[in-house]
């Protein structure tokens, strides 16, 4: 177990700068998720920690030791790849024991560790099989098994669930989280899927364009996004955001007055409200129903006010149909105001 510290990390590929001085401290045993759209630099950051990419500037320390010039194999890390990267000519047992074999561990030790990992991951029936004889989920578990037999200081996951189907992804998500709770190994996990990030992380670093936009606990990010990017990225369905102007303690937008606290009189703002905080009511702001998506426990209604589309999430069922007129009641306690120019939270 170990801490990880990124200090002012810069990465350039040729003349293109993909990371602009990223700093991040990860505590011992913490599960940190790097999340962001593709091309934001999250995988690059992880690969630099793994020693698979050179560091252009700044430093990375594992357990207080700067590892900039340390070989991957001497960093005491284990990585799970999106493509599994299992050795196709080795059985599951050999795949999992490979790192120990390279360390010249005794065979009894290797067998013991592999057996233990196989037990944790329910891989015992498959130890003699080859990767090609396994399903996607099993392969991914073998990849995780290969990581845990090492008992490394840090686990690195690079989009490990992206190749799995939706149902398996949910199951593996829970497995990885359970594994972390059991082993308590410091983990850095990269994904573009904000739901994975929300459900698994102790803390999330939302990245965009080579910078960390916000770092915090999942619900803190959800409840208090620091800027427009985080507000739009975190949460599914995404937050409703539209232009408005602060007037007399409220925001005038879409031809109506929306409850708000803060902002200077006359300030141009982006008004944000999550779909579940915008409920249909007997009276309020009028809107027209465009699409109704019943999901059983809740119903998602796509409504429009003029040209602006708003997503409304309501618990239970809805009797509204396309073309119906409904009234929206925004929760005044859950308003997110952002400066229209800087995009920063007000």
């Amino acid at each position, binding site marked *: 177990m170990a801490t990880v510290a990124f200090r002012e990390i810069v990465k350039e590929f040729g003349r293109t700068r993909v990371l602009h001085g990223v700093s991040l401290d990860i505590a011992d045993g913490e599960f940190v998720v790097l999340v962001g759209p593709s091309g934001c630099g999250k995988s690059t950051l992880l690969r630099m920690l*793994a*020693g*698979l990419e050179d560091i252009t500037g700044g430093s990375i320390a594992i357990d207080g030791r700067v590892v900039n010039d340390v*070989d*991957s*194999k001497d960093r005491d*890390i*284990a*990585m799970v*790849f*999106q*493509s*599994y*990267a*299992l*050795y*196709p*000519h080795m059985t599951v047992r050999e795949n999992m024991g*490979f*790192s120990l074999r*390279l*360390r010249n561990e005794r065979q009894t030790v290797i067998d013991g560790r592999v057996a233990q990992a196989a037990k944790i991951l329910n891989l015992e029936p498959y130890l003699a099989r*080859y*990767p*090609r*004889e*396994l399903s*996607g989920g099993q*392969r991914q578990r073998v990849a995780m098994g*290969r990581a845990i037999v*090492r008992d490394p200081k840090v686990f690195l996951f690079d989009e490990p669930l992206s*190749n799995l189907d939706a149902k398996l992804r949910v199951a593996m998500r829970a497995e990885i989280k359970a594994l972390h709770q059991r082993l308590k190994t410091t983990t850095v996990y990269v994904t573009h899927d904000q739901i994975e990030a929300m459900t698994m992380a102790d803390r999330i670093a939302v990245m965009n364009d080579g910078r960390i936009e916000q770092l915090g606990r999942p619900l803190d990010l959800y409840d208090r996004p620091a800027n427009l990017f985080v507000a739009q990225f975190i949460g599914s369905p995404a937050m409703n955001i539209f232009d408005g102007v602060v007037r007399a303690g409220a925001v005038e937008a879409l031809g109506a007055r929306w409850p708000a606290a803060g902002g200077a009189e006359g300030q141009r703002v982006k008004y944000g409200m999550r779909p579940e905080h915008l409920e249909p009511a007997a009276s309020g702001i009028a809107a027209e129903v465009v699409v109704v998506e019943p999901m059983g426990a809740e119903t998602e209604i796509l409504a429009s006010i003029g040209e602006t589309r708003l997503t409304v999430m309501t618990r239970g069922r809805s009797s509204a149909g396309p073309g119906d007129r409904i009234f929206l009641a925004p929760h005044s306690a859950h308003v997110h105001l952002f400066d229209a120019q800087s995009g920063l939270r007000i």
Partner: protein
Amino acid sequence: MTSRKLLSEAKLWLVGIPVLIWTLVPIYHIFLFSISTKDSAFSGRLWPDHPTLRNFGTVFRQEHFYLHHFWHQIWNSVWIACAAGALTMAIATCAAFAISRLKVRGGRAVMNAALFTYFIPAAFLAVPMYKAMGNYGLLNSRWSLVLAMVTIASPYAIWVLKQASDKLPWELDEAARIDGATPVQLFRLVYLPLMVPSLVAIFTYALLLAWNEYLYAFLLLSHENTIPLAVGLGHFLSSDDSPWEILMATALIYGMPPAAIYYVFRRYMVGGLTAGAVKS
């Protein structure tokens, strides 16, 4: 079947049948000669009146003037072909690994140079090669032919293996590095096992190239005991009255090993070993 399909099928047959005849007739000719007696060899019939296997006995027992060193020469052929195959494979594998997986500097230049060698016909190099071998005192040694064959086969072998290496998932190297593998361990434990089909293909290629070589063998080796059988066969033609039936019997025997090698290694020619490595 639509008329268009029928047409394309017909075209295929139209090309295929002549090619088949073109390929098989000489082989049948060799076979026909080899089972004919000396008198009936030129009878012009499609099947001899009295087919015989005596010619093969003559060859195996070295009972003809031109065949006094038959076993020695076929052993030379085997030795030279295997050595050329093994050496080419070793050189090309190391080169491809270094260029494709370790990304050493100058790799591109090596690849371009390898391709460039094919602008020069092998025959042009015969005289310089002869001179070089003479300088090293290798003339009349089987090694001279082995080295010449390796020189000729390596560029293509490197090219092919580099392409095959590039297809191996890069993540495997990264996973191995993180697992603690040194480059040598990566080469031995991950790269080589996955390259087996390509290695066999390259080994076979170089082996057959050396097995079938005549020009360089004729130039570099001249002693009865060092020449391969290909050159030995050529000696048959040095007299006015060549024993064609025995020449063809020997040729048929000489043609067997390549056919056998193709048959044995055919399953390696198809890939599929990397299935399951990564999601594709």
